């Protein structure tokens, strides 16, 4: 029926004999695989449709993070020295370890997809569990980092320690009563840092939940050589989260030293 709709055949026009045969065949083929929904001709088409839908979602996610990256880029271009000074307070090594962990988790989830396509359920579960382990390690290190930074007075707002960012000699002097322009700009960097890594961490938490669900359904035997789309799609989501971090790490942690532009 959907093939007729997409061919703009108006409702009420009787289907030809050839069309009946084709629809019948498609339904029969579909019936062989209980996982193929009735609107698809075969599993391959269903997989393609799922992939396309997932990419459409990832495109919206790219714009979601993209807006934050844009705001960060504009402010960093305007206040380069303050941003560089604020970035010095982040730990590059925690960031590097986190990057390694996330790249590793992308690797293990790609392996999970690979084994799912081969129908090897045991290996799929093992790879998924590794991915979850690495993802949890990432979040743990992030929590340590945030604790360190918030205790160090870097959380924007009432607890922000403006004295950390005494302005350089050539900046417009503060009136001595309030925080200087320079430290306000450094606070802006910290806002960008907490919001962007926080949004990223939220995405990771959601991803971990999805991976746990995947482990559950794989152990129930619902992932086979013919039907492994959930693993594929959640793998795509996880890779996207990794790509976001690939850009976050150099932009937030690796700003070259202040005054060296």
């Amino acid at each position, binding site marked *: 029926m959907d093939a007729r709709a997409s061919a703009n055949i108006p409702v009420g026009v009787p289907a030809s004999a050839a069309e009946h045969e084709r629809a019948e065949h498609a339904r029969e083929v579909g019936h062989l695989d209980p996982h193929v929904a009735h609107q698809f001709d075969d599993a391959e088409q269903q997989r393609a449709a799922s992939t396309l839908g997932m*990419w459409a979602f*990832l495109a919206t996610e790219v*714009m979601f993070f993209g807006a934050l990256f844009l705001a960060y880029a*504009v402010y960093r271009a305007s206040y380069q020295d303050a941003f560089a000074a604020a970035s010095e307070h982040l730990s590059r090594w925690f960031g590097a370890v986190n990057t*390694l962990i996330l*790249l*590793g988790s992308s690797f293990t989830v790609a392996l999970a997809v690979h084994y799912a396509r081969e129908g090897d359920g045991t290996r799929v579960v093992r790879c998924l569990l590794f991915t979850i382990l690495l993802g949890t390690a990432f979040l743990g290190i992030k929590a340590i980092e945030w604790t360190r930074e918030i205790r160090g007075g870097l959380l924007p707002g009432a607890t922000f320690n403006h004295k950390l960012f005494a302005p350089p000699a050539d900046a417009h002097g503060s009136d001595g009563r309030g925080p200087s322009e320079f430290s306000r700009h450094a606070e802006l960097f910290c806002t960008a840092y907490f919001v962007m890594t926080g949004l990223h961490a939220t995405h990771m938490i959601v991803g971990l939940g999805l991976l746990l669900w995947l482990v559950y359904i794989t152990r129930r035997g619902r992932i086979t050589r013919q039907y492994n789309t959930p693993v594929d799609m959640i793998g795509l989501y996880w890779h996207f989260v990794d790509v976001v971090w690939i850009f976050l790490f150099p932009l937030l942690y690796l700003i070259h030293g202040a005054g060296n532009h």
Partner: protein
Amino acid sequence: MPEEHSSVRTYVVIFAWLVVLMFLTILAAMLDLGPFNLAVAMVIAVVKATLVVMFFMHVKYSGRLIWIYAAGAFLWLGILLTLTFSDYLSRGWVPRRLPSQPTAGLFRAAESLAESAPFPSAQTRSNPAGIPRLDLAPPPTTQRSIGAQPSGID
């Protein structure tokens, strides 16, 4: 769309490259390349992202439609970044003007002329060539009224 997928060995190789590129990024950040620090870091990040998208996300082996969706996502981000930055970077290229002087800074020649010309009054507008009017009595020399008597000449 038939989809081949990579072997385990391909994944291992790509992962190794990703790790190497990551260390390269950190190394480059330790050097002082001036304004190129950001460019180098971003180029490496784009290469890493491309590796992840192509191989881990299987876009390399997918049909054209998925290529278009994947490329489109980043193209739209590119539009956002390009247009916004072309706005910010071109501010200050054209001088700012007050609403009372909408053409300030644009016509320097006309402005310099306007500075040297006398300010137009009602008499000048009605008699721009300054031809004296003999039918009117000349103004008394002691009087210094402001624009009250028509003299014919400003």
